[in-house]
């Protein structure tokens, strides 16, 4: 989806004045963000700049110090545990480490989120859903395999399939190409775009892989010192003369 088309869409995630610190370390300091429907928003920052903390705060895995996080007009910081569970159905989360349950088969990994939310779903429906998401990531043949039997790229695809099984409206990607070779990384990025089209999702993508950023982003937020340092499209930011922004784009010139 082009940046122009996204401009008129509704806001699905709105963050205002978010603060999060660990002891003396202010990781997020008055951070603001808007994610619009159908948008792929990349949050770009160095390692340890608080990118992963940001999305963990959005999904309620971490408590915030102050500020507001609204997801579909629900104030995440004020939700009870049960309300948070209901909200999480609408949000998929792709972990950096994939976080596949290593004692379960691929099928069991994919069925696991369903067991909580769709108690009355029949076994046939569950099987159908599992096969559907596996076909969407091109790995239907791995259904009875264990995660340890899969390559890094395959595990990433299965983890993506697991986030898709509840048909989320928003997907949060935590460094989706980390640990993958450039070719597999590119395949994953293209798969993310396919998923966005097919499931009509909005995404926040945490990354410092500029190849991934170039492929997937509609808009980029540069996170420096816990604040939104700059925002714009890939083309706009790549032409920036700001040295802090140029550091990120210099890396792609060397790696492409």
């Amino acid at each position, binding site marked *: 989806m082009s940046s122009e088309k996204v401009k008129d869409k509704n806001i699905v995630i709105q963050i205002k004045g978010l603060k999060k610190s660990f002891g003396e370390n202010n990781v997020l300091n008055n951070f603001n963000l808007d994610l619009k429907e159908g948008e792929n928003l990349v949050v770009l920052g160095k390692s340890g700049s608080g990118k992963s903390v940001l999305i963990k705060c959005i999904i309620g895995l971490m408590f915030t110090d102050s500020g507001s996080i609204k997801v579909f007009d629900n104030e995440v910081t004020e939700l009870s545990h049960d309300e948070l569970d209901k909200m*999480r159905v609408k949000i998929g989360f792709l972990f*950096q480490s994939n976080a596949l349950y290593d004692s379960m088969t691929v099928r069991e990994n994919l069925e696991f989120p369903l067991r909580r939310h769709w108690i009355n779903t029949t076994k046939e429906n569950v099987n159908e859903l599992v096969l559907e998401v596996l076909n969407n990531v091109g790995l239907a043949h791995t259904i009875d395999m264990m995660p340890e039997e899969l390559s890094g790229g395959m595990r990433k695809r299965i983890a993506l399939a697991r986030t898709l099984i509840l048909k989320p409206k928003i997907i949060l990607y935590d460094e989706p190409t980390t640990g993958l070779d450039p070719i597999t990384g590119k395949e994953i990025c293209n798969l993310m775009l396919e998923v966005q089209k097919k499931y009509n999702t909005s995404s926040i993508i945490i990354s410092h892989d500029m190849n991934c950023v170039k492929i997937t982003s509609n808009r980029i937020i540069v996170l420096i010192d816990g604040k939104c340092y700059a925002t714009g499209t890939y083309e706009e930011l790549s032409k920036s003369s700001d040295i802090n922004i140029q550091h990120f784009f210099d890396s792609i010139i060397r790696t492409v």
Partner: protein
Amino acid sequence: MKSKALTNLLKETADLYLFTIRFFKEGFKPRFEVSELINQCFYIGNKTLPLVGITGFIMGLVITIQSHPSMKAFGAESWLPSVVSVSLVREIVPVITALICAGKIGSGIGAELGSMKVTEQIDAMEVSGTNPFKYLVVTRVFAAMLMLPLLVILSDAIALYGAYIGVNMKQVISFQLYSNQIFSKLTFSDVLPSIIKSFFFGFAIGIIGCFKGFSTKNGTQGVGRAANSAVVAATFVVFIIDLMAAQIADIFSIT
């Protein structure tokens, strides 16, 4: 340095206390993870039984063989089955079974949950709408509480059979006479306290293993530490519970 270690110990004890309170708050609230509880009962009970059984058999055999010369010296050889059976059922079997379970189950739970923690699997469970505390902790602690008494009862039976073989190595005695001698001295007040305390042993082993696993930090090194410290702490607590059980039994004259 010593004060820092003491502070850490007190902090960990407080965290374990809060973890236990959370167990009681969440353990009796629906939704109940019955299928996972059955899985864990199978894992804890079935997989530990061979080790517990063999150890029980050897303990019964060895204690009988070693007690025989002393009993013979006092001319109380015929008392051997009843004396051995009381010591096996009241103390040796429950404690040895609990120590084996602390090693096998405590370390297993600590390592499994620790590994899940550092690889973000617990977070993944939470974002998929499953309460990981209920699914992982409550099921494991209840399974340990249910299985420990069963393991102790089975191990008692195996140990008493081991003792029968031990008695027969020095003298010939029929199984019926041996049984009569055992059950003439072994009373309900010998069996019940050992079953009750094994229930608490199971709780301690389960909750400590889960606590150590859930509070794992520092990657794979932390997983090893969690497993190790789960065994050490559970072993220590088993002895504390045993001491308390002996005192309580004494107060209520169940001796």
